[in-house]
């Protein structure tokens, strides 16, 4: 499939290219990067993931475009003691629930999300269960 839009040019000056479709973006540039991609025709936000590396957080965005074989990956690293990043709900409304889920299970705070409450777990739940510090059963 022809790659009519080259993401590297879209994200020039905003993100650093790691490989063909992967970019690392600084925390303060995430909204800018998503806006640039959205304007460049990447209209579908597939997934927001948080990964707990125990000394840092990694937030991974998978963004794609209809009719395109590959997915653009944006990665943002956050310091462990300050898991806060700006919400991209203004660009994709659907991102709101992804962010709520990430907050619910990982405890990442998305500033600017209008409705950042727990979504899957009960409201009075105290832990963020997907963090590595929360232990669950035995590994087998």
């Amino acid at each position, binding site marked *: 499939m022809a790659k009519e839009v080259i993401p590297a040019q879209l994200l020039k000056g905003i993100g650093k290219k790691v490989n063909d479709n992967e970019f690392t973006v600084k925390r303060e540039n995430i909204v800018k990067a998503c806006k640039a991609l959205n304007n460049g025709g990447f209209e579908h936000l597939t997934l927001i993931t948080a990964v707990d590396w125990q000394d840092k957080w990694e937030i991974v965005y*998978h963004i794609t475009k209809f*009719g*395109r074989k590959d*997915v653009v990956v944006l990665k943002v690293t956050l310091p462990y003691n300050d898991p806060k990043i700006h919400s991209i709900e203004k660009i*994709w409304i*659907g991102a709101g*629930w992804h962010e709520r889920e990430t907050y619910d299970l990982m405890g990442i705070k998305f500033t600017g999300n209008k409705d950042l409450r727990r979504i899957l777990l009960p409201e009075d739940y105290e832990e963020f*269960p997907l963090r590595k510090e929360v232990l669950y059963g035995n590994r087998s």
Partner: protein
Amino acid sequence: METALNIGPQHPSTHGVLRMKTIIDGEIVKKCEPDVGYIHRGLEKIAENRMYFKFTPVANKIDYLAAAAWEHCYISCVEQVLDMDVPERVKWARMLMLELQRIVSHLFWIGTLCMDIGQPTVFVWAMREREKFLDIFEEVMGGRMTYGWMIIGGLRDDITPSQVTMMWHALEEVEKRLPEYYRMTEKNHIFKKRLQGIGVITKEEAIAYGLTGAVARASGVPYDVRKDDPYLKYEEVEWEMITREAGDCWARYEVKRDEIYQSISIAKQAIKKLPNGPFRLKNAATLRPPTALSLKTPENGEAFVRNECPRGEGCIYLRTDGSNFPYRLRIRGPSFNNLCILDHVCRGATIPDVVAILATLDPVFGECDR
């Protein structure tokens, strides 16, 4: 005067366990806030504590109405991170079963939709047709609802010629029977009126909310992972992506109805083209200890797989750390993302419309709550 009305979580028309906090004025819905998470089982956490091959039975339970779709999604993700290329026969066989699973899932969906709308006959008929396929699944994959048939690097059991014959007969029969359904639905004035013009989602809304699957295609979004990013052998069979422009409940019904025919066609082509050959790799992770326990994943490995599950785009994102356990496994349940538009669509609709809208959004809560 505005009244708060609580719908669910145990109401049958919520297709499982969805609670809707609705504010109504007379019969008009002013606000409808979905409350999900009643069967959240923490699958992503469970995955981190299980060896790769032990998560397969759990992956089946992500969407219990289309277990094979998620089984394949997980297995292919692990295969991608291990850089395994499965034999041709495996690819065709997997695609065949995925399409049979899609037919089963869509049949169940048509049945429950008709039940919600007040046409229980079709529900019973759909169950009858589905039963034939469940028998096939039991025969081929070893289970009626959840399987564990695919293993990392191939299949647990091969498909035999007699099973292929069974599949062909079942496909022929369901193709013959489907027009009967349409006489019960499309010729039925009430059924039509309950769906036409109800719950309209525009193309822009569908994109902004990140909807996928039949819901998005009914709003004119041309997105089907089988076409956009073909996996298995979808490139080598002839089929078309079904889209509609209207975006109402009726359009969503039509898309799924036509997709059954497409799936039948794909399955038949797969049966014809099913090549001979090995049904697993030599180093496939069979359940015998040495192979499954000694899976070596790369340190800092990464895999992202998207599949067209019956309910939309299902994705699994996997990070590995070189051990025999996933470091992080993220599941994108299409039902979860399709549900986030519920509040927006239901505003201004009547309470019976909410049932129709929810039925056509087709959430399955195993997949939504994970």
